[in-house]
């Protein structure tokens, strides 16, 4: 079943579908510019040496986000098919 969780909870290498970007307006706009918006597929690819920020693959680009921001992005897990 579709279960909504926070982007920061998705383990590295798994993929997720963004359900909602619940950030302050300025940050949300910036996320949108990066293509981090409802319906995009996003996947954590690697963490920085101290665990924060984390790099995400979205739309073929790698974007680094702080955990406190990825906390506010809600996603549904995608079961690995490929």
């Amino acid at each position, binding site marked *: 079943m579709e279960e909504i969780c926070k982007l920061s909870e998705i383990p590295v290498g798994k993929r997720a579908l963004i359900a909602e970007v619940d950030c302050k307006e300025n940050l949300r706009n910036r996320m949108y*510019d990066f293509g981090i918006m409802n319906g995009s597929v996003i996947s954590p690819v690697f963490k920085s040496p101290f665990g*924060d920020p984390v790099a995400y693959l979205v739309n073929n680009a790698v*974007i680094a986000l702080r955990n406190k921001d990825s906390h506010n992005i809600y996603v549904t897990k995608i079961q690995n098919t490929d």
Partner: protein
Amino acid sequence: MLTRGSNRKVDYDKEINNTDYQVVLTGNPNVGKSTVFNAITGMKQHTGNWTGKTVECASGRAKINDKVFSFIDLPGTYSILSFSKEEAVAADYLMHNETDCAIIVIDANVIERNLSFALQILSIVKNAVLCLNLCDQAKKNGIIIDTEELAKNLGIPVIATCATKCNGLEELEQTVYDICVGNIKCFHIDELFKNIDISHKDKYKENAELFKKQSIRICKKCVTYNKSELNRNTRRLDKILTSKSTGIPIMLLLFAFLFWITAIGANYPSMWLSNGFEWLKEQLYIFMDFVNAPEFLRGILIDGVYTTLTWVISVMLPPMAIFFPLFSLLEDSGYLPRIAFNLDKFFAKCGAHGKQSLTMAMGIGCNACGVTGCRIIESPQERLIAVLTNNFMPCNGRFPMLIAIIMMFFAGTSMTFGSSVLTAVILLAIIAFCVIVTLIVSKILSLTLAKGTQSSFALELPPYRKPQILRTIVRSFLDRTIFVLGRAVAVAAPAGALIWILANVYVNDCSLLSYCTEFLDPFGKFIGLDGTIIMAFILGFPANETVIPVIIMSYMASGTLMEYSGYDQLLTLFTANGWTITTAICIIIMCIMHYPCSTTVLTIKKETKSLKWTLVSMILPTVIGIILCMITANVMRLFL
């Protein structure tokens, strides 16, 4: 029409006058706009593989067929509705200036997101050409784009290019020409912009979603992906360069290596140059004797101007000419954003932004550039913190001074493998110290003067790209050399004359300079320096490069007559004037922590638009420097 801030027309009259058509380059950050721009106009804008390298508009001109075109290179933006300072520049320009044609440069690898941006531009500009850049990389990644179909869907011509290899650029120029003279017609496809109303800023979310929907629809028709994993080598490299165990050590090693090459590589050219200049000086003396030049002229020209000038060139130039090309390579490779990524946690803890590490890195090149670069930081208070603390990174004017002091007092001037490694390690330690000071001061500022809410960190990590090694080295070397030579002539020469006059105009058997230095001496001694060094820092306000020459000259004028031609003689001169390890440490501290040079101060004034913050940026490091020197000097006195 969207209004943003002021309605002023950005003033580029100089370039635009007398041209037939005006063209702008626009696109997401780091898609190669500047490379395209350089290729078309033959200009030498610096490029780098990271977001925000270009923060100000650059303009140039080119003749295509029989017409003259002006080209404006706008800073890269992720959206034209966004909020960062450098993005406002681009948006402002597009909204308020008439352009004949826009070149929308997009990265073929990230076509979906880039198309969204292209559509935003097309909603306000009709005549445009889409420049599908980095096509060779996309091909390697298995991305196949049907350019004809894409052109049909957008209503504008689409040209596939690879700007670094100059592929497709002629076709691009021809297309721009054809659009401007009317041979090619662009279409505004209303269907693409249905329900989109960018004049409402609060409709941002809806607009962005509609743009995205359109770009997905177009991508489905025109783009096929053959591989499931893109940029595989970048992923592999990132595993090493950003991992928990290896990320930080590799970063430190890399910088240590850079410093080591600089230290060891700079020594020989430095020696050759100073020997050459020394020889030339002899000839100049002979010439002066030959023409019976008055003593005064001989003194001011040779002992004043010539000596200072040649010092700046022979000691300052080689380290710069080696360090900066290497640093440019690092910049082009895409490693810098990883540094920001690796270190963001520390910056976050200190109320600062990870991107500050990028502006700090730029500060090593030139603090004025670093301060301008702070525009990439969106939130005002974090930007202010970055501006105020940038000066703690030693710029290229101070860098060689540090190397000279380290070699003379700590690592030895023998230039063996051991001493050069030691120089590099000490230099690295000093830079690490600078970073720590920056972080501490940032933290204090974020709690006191520059309070505010912390913004977020969203930074794109571009794929690694192989830098164009030869071109980068040559370009950066030439630019640097010309810059330093220009500065040496403009600043060091008059400074040399001034110092000579101060040192040789006597009032009551004492030179003006010695009055000044004697006046400053008690204070200087108290903080571990002496009056001459303080005086040198004061006179070094226009350019830090002149600090050491001023010191040398005032010591030499005050009796210790000698010719210097290398670090060893210099060391003898300094120790003869009472320098100890304490002096060396204090001068390093003072070198890192004193008011910024005049150029940087003016830049800070321009960027902050506030006299208060400009003064803070001058007083803050000076006070910290003096206090630290005082503590060091008095603690050292207990032991020595």
